[in-house]
């Protein structure tokens, strides 16, 4: 747990280093830029490319992860994420599958100073609350015993609810007008790990390994953003 916490902290520090390099001491200028940009709204939709690549290497972990964020004001973004996936455990002793959908909601705070009003590149830190609805298949088990002979059986399937808390950090870079790419790192801490003690899902899409109470995760998103001007209120 400490390892993941330290990794998350280090990555956040890296992001802060980037901020420090680029920090503008001219507060008046910053305020002007924020005022100008706060007259604009942005909605951004993205897809995590990293998880399907990972599935190519490890067929036990499958996930599709999408994000939607909305620029509110003062470098604040409301974020909604979701997706689905599956995992499987297949060994001599135990064999079962699981599938789930997940949702995460939260907030990102941009920590870089804009170089110009229409500069949408960002580094951020954020918080998330995540939940997953998991369907675990019946589990077939075999107890290997050379003296008495093997014992086999089946444990019935189960529907499980899991929820967790995340600390996030990352960057988004606008490559072309409206087209972004960037990464998000996540330190995740599950609330109801006890429920997953027996026959934990091999992989919970949106969270990670079901038998870990805390976990480090990574996404590499490609996003498309649309922007519009806020209506003036007289």
């Amino acid at each position: 747990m400490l390892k993941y916490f330290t990794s998350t902290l280090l990555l956040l520090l890296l992001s802060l280093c980037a901020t420090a390099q680029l920090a503008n001491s001219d507060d008046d200028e910053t305020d002007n830029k924020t005022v100008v940009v706060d007259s604009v709204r942005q909605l951004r939709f993205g897809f995590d490319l990293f998880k399907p690549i990972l599935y190519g290497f490890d067929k036990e972990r499958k996930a599709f992860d999408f994000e939607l964020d909305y620029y509110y004001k003062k470098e604040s973004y409301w974020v909604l994420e979701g997706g689905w996936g599956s995992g499987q455990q297949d060994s001599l002793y135990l064999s079962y599958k699981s599938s789930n959908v997940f949702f995460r909601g939260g907030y990102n705070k941009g920590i870089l100073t804009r170089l110009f009003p229409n500069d949408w590149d960002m580094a951020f830190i954020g918080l998330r609350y995540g939940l997953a609805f998991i369907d675990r298949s019946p589990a077939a088990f075999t107890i290997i015993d050379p003296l008495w002979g093997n014992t086999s059986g089946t444990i019935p399937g189960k529907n499980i609810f899991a929820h967790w808390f995340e600390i996030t950090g990352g960057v988004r870079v606008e490559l072309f007008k409206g087209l972004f790419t960037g990464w998000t790192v996540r330190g995740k801490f599950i609330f109801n790990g006890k429920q997953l003690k027996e026959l934990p899902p091999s992989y919970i899409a949106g969270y990670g390994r079901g038998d870990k109470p805390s976990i480090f995760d990574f996404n590499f998103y490609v996003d498309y953003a649309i922007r519009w001007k806020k209506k003036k209120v007289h």
Partner: protein
Amino acid sequence: MIKTGSKLSLIILLVSVLWVSCKRSSEPCFQPLTVDMVVGTYKPADTGYAGVDSILPKALITIPDSNFALYKGVNQSKFALLLSPKSDSIRYYISTDSTFLGSDTITFYYQRNLTFLSKACGYTFHYVLQSVKNTYYNIDSVKIVNGNIDGTANIEHVKIFY
């Protein structure tokens, strides 16, 4: 806005995260898959059931139903016996001097509990010892001191007094 610093951090991050994330989720099983019932042999003492260790000179312990000898001519006072996951009781022949003459029969009655070990190791049986019956050729009495047989280390479950 995002300059060299964050590009470098992105590369470092990608490499480290790929390494962490690409580790396979399947792990080998390193836990013992069966649990033993630990039996100690004693001579009665004034301290009641505490007893005094009594080393059997040439212990012979067999399972009559399977003709399997767990111990053959050993000189010791602690024995790890196995319970059967296929039934709710098991009989053992226990002889102190490696002959069947005057050997005692002990029957252990227990409850089997299917127990999850881990994703890597699957399930095993843990047991709750409920009662013991024995013959009295050499044995004076048998006492269950800890009925939970769950693989906990350094626990003696049964005391046999000679």
